[in-house]
């Protein structure tokens, strides 16, 4: 097996029965594995709600480590739509040329730094700083804030190799509380200030609501972006012909990004709470139990994707659910897409080849399934392109 490969652990269960079972802190989850079921259930918010107690729709559950409701993530329509309308224009800013220019200069700088060093541990010394610096653009906060975020490490809710960590989560919550207080005293043009002045149902957003949006923004785009970036570099290291193709045909880069998001599926799955006794794949699910929408499995469904276990750089029809599906699709997707697109273009323009040295895979334990999502660490040598 290639070092960069992400095997599909769901294949057998997906075709045989369509679901998997996982115990998570004594709150079991029925995982939906088929593309069609995942999309239908994501759309059916009446039966599969996101508005459960905060943290419960996340797997592993975060009910024991937070009380703040993430917004608009843990809210159902129609209220969800009202929140989403407030934040959507802000999260579409990555489509503006000026934003892309700044992102390109950040990415160019970090690649140059890396080429200077030669060998880099990609997870902690490339993907994490890249993600954190880029987040200053999304939040429109000073660049130096990224230093604080980098110091938190790759996970905001867990320590290295451990499950959920309440103390660690508190670092993030305290930080966000302090930032909101700062923005109340000295409003600026950053995301905290913009949210604090936003109108919701004829009133301003409360501090708790602003906190809910900010926690979502920090948590949702951290390990996901880090895994996407790291996996992309590992893939290019083992597929020099793909790097060459991106160099010669930059116009396919957008399609390549979609295909990488499908194949990597940086977020394995997301939960919902069942509001009435029902069936999924002829399997009974009880009211108040949990299901999960397994994006990673749906994205390898051979009834939808030809050669699902291959990265086809210019896959033309690609209805992947790597950014989720329906009302709750990823709010940060525009930012993530631009980041990945610029990363691939810039790597193609500056790097001749990569060499993977030692590495350790990051394997998620889903009871019935073990899924590789990326790496805990991976040392890679970047060889410069001599023009």
């Amino acid at each position: 097996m290639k070092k960069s490969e992400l095997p599909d652990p769901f294949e057998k269960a997906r075709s045989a029965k369509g679901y998997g079972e996982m115990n998570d802190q004594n709150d079991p989850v029925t995982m939906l594995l088929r593309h069609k079921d995942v999309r239908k259930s994501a759309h059916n918010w009446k039966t599969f709600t996101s508005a459960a107690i905060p943290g419960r729709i996340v797997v592993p559950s975060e009910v024991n480590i937070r009380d703040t409701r993430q917004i608009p993530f843990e809210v159902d329509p129609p209220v969800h739509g009202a929140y989403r309308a407030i934040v959507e224009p802000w999260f579409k800013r990555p489509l503006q040329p000026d934003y892309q220019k700044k992102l390109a200069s950040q990415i160019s700088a970090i690649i140059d730094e890396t080429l200077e060093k030669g060998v880099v541990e990609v997870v902690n010394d490339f993907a994490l700083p890249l993600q954190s610096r880029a987040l200053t653009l999304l939040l429109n906060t000073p660049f130096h804030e990224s230093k604080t975020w980098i110091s938190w490490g790759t996970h905001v809710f867990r320590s290295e190799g451990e499950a959920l960590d309440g103390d660690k989560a508190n670092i993030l919550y305290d930080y966000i509380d302090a930032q909101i207080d700062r923005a109340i005293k000295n409003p600026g043009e950053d995301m905290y200030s913009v949210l604090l002045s936003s109108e919701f149902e004829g009133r301003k957003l409360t501090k708790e609501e602003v906190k809910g949006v900010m926690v979502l923004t920090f948590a949702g785009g951290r390990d996901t972006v880090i895994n996407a970036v790291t996996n992309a570099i590992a893939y290019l290291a083992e597929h020099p012909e793909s790097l060459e193709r991106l160099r010669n045909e930059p116009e396919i880069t957008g399609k390549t990004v979609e295909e990488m998001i499908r194949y990597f599926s940086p977020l394995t799955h997301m939960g919902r709470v069942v509001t009435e006794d029902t069936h999924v794949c002829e399997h009974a699910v009880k009211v108040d139990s949990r299901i999960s929408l397994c994006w990673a499995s749906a994205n390898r469904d051979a009834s939808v994707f030809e050669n699902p276990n291959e990265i086809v750089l210019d896959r033309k029809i690609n209805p992947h659910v790597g950014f989720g599906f329906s009302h709750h699709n990823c709010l940060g997707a525009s930012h993530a897409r631009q980041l990945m697109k610029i990363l691939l273009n810039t790597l193609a323009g500056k790097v001749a080849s990569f060499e993977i040295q030692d590495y350790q895979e990051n394997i998620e334990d889903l009871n019935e399934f073990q899924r590789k999502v990326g790496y805990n660490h991976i040392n890679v040598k970047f060889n410069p392109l001599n023009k």
Partner: protein
Amino acid sequence: MAKITFITSANETITLEGTEGSVMALAVENGVRGIDGDCGGVCSCATCHVHVAPDDMDKTGVASEIESDMLELDDNADEYSRLCCQLEISDALDGVVLTVAK
């Protein structure tokens, strides 16, 4: 060369001329409101949903199976719905009128 008319949800009428590429790309390049084309045209985001004028359906044809699956879960969809990333510009599309869904 094809002339393609978009009617936005703000009732703006915009007529654009194109020779190649997808209708979605033409709309995005010209800033037609309500057509975002987030995924760049691979049929994964449904942010380029349009309603084709009934008389123009013979020019555009109906949605493909994967496209229909995407549209099936859109509360706004009807039999004239298309994702315009899947409409390739050619002379055959000349004169079509598309109402932007969003």
